[in-house]
């Protein structure tokens, strides 16, 4: 049998305890143990960014973090991006700019873009493309995603 461990962490602002396998990645734990399936598995080796979450203020691929490592950590997933019942400007901009087609990469792009705008509220097109080069999208050709991030950046700066 596998070894189970109890982990305490704050997820989307709420402290919780959960049981995980010692071999679970944070992504495994989020999806299979906690039931937060917004972070997606595209590659399980950090290549595609579909599982991006913000861990103690840092953007990480949750497939490359062990669940056991997040004891005491503060984690924001796609499910925690919309605050107070309102879509985040990035979410609104992705909808208005049609920046998604199949939508599987969208959670990762929105989480990554939020980490970018938190650091750099007014990025250039090149800075957006550079920052998002760790997120793969196969549907859009990135054009509308980059425009959505630019639009969200404008919305957030007022």
């Amino acid at each position: 049998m596998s070894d189970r461990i109890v982990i305490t962490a704050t997820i989307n602002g709420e402290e919780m305890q959960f049981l995980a396998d010692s071999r679970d990645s944070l992504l495994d734990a989020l999806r299979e143990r906690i039931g937060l399936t917004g972070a997606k598995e595209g590659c399980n080796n950090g290549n595609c960014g579909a599982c991006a979450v913000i861990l103690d203020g840092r953007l990480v691929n949750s497939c490359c973090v062990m669940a056991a490592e997040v004891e005491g950590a503060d984690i924001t997933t796609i499910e925690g991006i919309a605050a107070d019942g309102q879509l985040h400007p990035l979410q609104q901009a992705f909808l208005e700019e049609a920046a998604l087609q199949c939508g599987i990469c969208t959670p990762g792009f929105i989480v990554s873009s939020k980490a970018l705008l938190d650091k750099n509220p007014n990025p250039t097109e090149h800075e957006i493309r550079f920052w998002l080069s760790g997120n793969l999208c196969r549907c859009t050709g990135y054009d509308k995603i980059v425009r959505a991030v630019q639009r969200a950046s404008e919305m957030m700066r007022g």
Partner: protein
Amino acid sequence: MVATKEYRVIGTRPIRHDGTDKVTGRAQYGADIRLTGMLYGRVKRSPHAHAIIKKIDASKALALPGVKAVITHADFPPPPAGVGVSGEGPPQPWRFQVENYLANKKALYRGHAVAAVAATDPHIAEDALALIDVEYEVLPPVLDVREAMSEAAPILHEDLRTRDTTPLAQNNPDKPSNIASHTQIKRGDIEKGFAEADVVIEREYVTTMYHQGYIEPHNGTAYWGKDGHLTVWNSSQSHFVFRNQLASVLQIPVQKVTVVPLEIGGGFGGKLYMYLEPLAALLSKKTGKPVKMTMTREEVFEATGPTSGTYIRVKIGAKRDGTIVAGQAYMAYEAGAYPGSPVGGGMNGIFAPYDIPNILVDGYDVVVNKPKTAAYRAPGTPAGMFAGEAALNELAKMLDMDPMDLRLKNAAKDNGERPWGGNWGVIGARQVMEAVKEHPHYKSELQGENVGRGVAMGYWGNAGGETSSSASVNSDGTVNLVLGSIDIGGTRPALAMQLAETLGITAEDVWPRVVDTDSVGFNLFTAGSRTAFAGGWAAYELGMEIRKRMVERAAKIWECDPSEVTYGDDGVIRGPNDAEGKERKFTFKELAAQLGRTGGTIDVSTNVNKTSVGPAFAGHICDVSVDKETGKVSILRYTAVQDVGTAIHPSYVEGQIQGGVAQGVGMALTEEYHFGPDGRMQNSSFLDYRMPTALDLPMIETVLVEVPNPGHPYGVRGVGEVPIVPPLAAVQTAIVEAIGVHFNELPITPARIVEALYPDA
């Protein structure tokens, strides 16, 4: 160019109905499902590209605590006789399809499934794989289409015979071959055509296998109930076709199978095929529990997709004035381990945009020890048209002609004959070529060093096929639209908008939902760029039926004959004046509120199977710069012109085009299947397969030419596939122009460029 007709809803850009769920992480994709008591399944795969399976021993795996069942090919019922649907291509023998689910006697490619296990935890299922002992007798693999066609090649299938449909065929039924079929397109007299030519170009081209690269790996969850009813949850491009296939290969009645479609994370043709679903079903039957299976990325690369590697020879002859008099091609496509390459797509596409009197195209479908190929966006056409369009660009140079003038001089015409027979109907080939030529990008001067420009055309026929759909009018005047074709990238809004247009209501007043196989009639797959066309036809018919019934209800209320009532395109129902001479009318919502009292809900359904498909043409312009030290190619500017028929939701039409361009650029520059001599894919990760990232591409300008399809009430043609076709030759030609070195093999990686520039280094 804009649509000739004014619309209220079509051409606007409403927020998609499924959008909020997708930006908040709530949308449920195939791998997100979780059922009570669920087990996790994994697949044991062949480490060899070609081997006889001598023995499979699962006893050690079954002894591992938590392991509940192991299955092999022997757990399938005998496959049905004959052939069954296989993606977009011609039907293929059931036997081959079942062998691809789980190998029988022989493993034919590295990654070929040989057994599957179900366990209580994903980690235990993974551990169990190493405990399944498989004894192999390793055979030499054949990995290249030309080698596979040679007399000395190892044979994959001892019982495979070449099906030669050409007039002078010399079929040899006693001789096994890797060539599954030889087909031909013939028009005029090719020898006579070349004899008339002043200039002849002859070239050969090679393309690698490419993967569709959808971000969501394949998945399938099944529960085989004690009552014999099988329910499958998955993400596919075709839940109805999967249902029928499951019934066939598991030998149960169709009504005993329900497939519940969850959101699909990309497919591009690659999710028209079952891999895990039949295994999950058999494992569920064996264990009595639901079984969920998902693939790793490595499995996706090694055992699903890709599209064919190809070898193509092209010969084109023209008069001095640019009139093309002869076009010939030899196309050999790798099918992978089982027959069924998309060579037909290349054969149709290569000369499609042009009116050429003498054509001869020979196509070969060839098995090799690589994954069984799957449809990939305009299947077969990118490689075929890469060859044709690259050769045409060279021919333009030889003739000292502008490459778009050469194309315009030979453009396929409305109602002309297609190379493979039949009539073009109304097409936008010429309009696209003109729009390319007139575009400011095309007229602009290139700036800088080692820069070049390329153009190319693309063609895809689009598709129709069966669609069932239903709709009901709610008492508040909103409408539910029930769909049975998978929405892979925005067809819910596109179909809701066409129903809204027909009814004169808003897109937001229609709620579209894709339902399971029990809840609406049969729908063919989401493929061939058919969904907005065929589903749009269905939405239109539903709308017209609702209009008719709304008119009847109004007539009932107004106590007049229905012929005295009109339904306006603005959604207002008008009747004869009342006794006082006042106009009588209802808005859609006002009348909807009366339905309960006038006979109940209006609930309509339809089944359409339209053949009035409108083909699509595209023309792209690409500027590149090449770093001669590193071989890196930068796309400086990209413009994609396309005849879209009518753009229902222009943002998603643009998105389809931009996405197709990105995939085509990947084919041209970076994406590649690297096989070792043992047949092992050496780069089976996203990092090493190297699809374009946001940093590899500029903004992609789109030009929507609208030549409405007369065979559709709103002029829809289908937009998704053709944009992947032109980038290959457009990028290749731009590189050739930039550095003066020819590349006839894709992808043109930095390594290939450096090698070509410094052959002695």
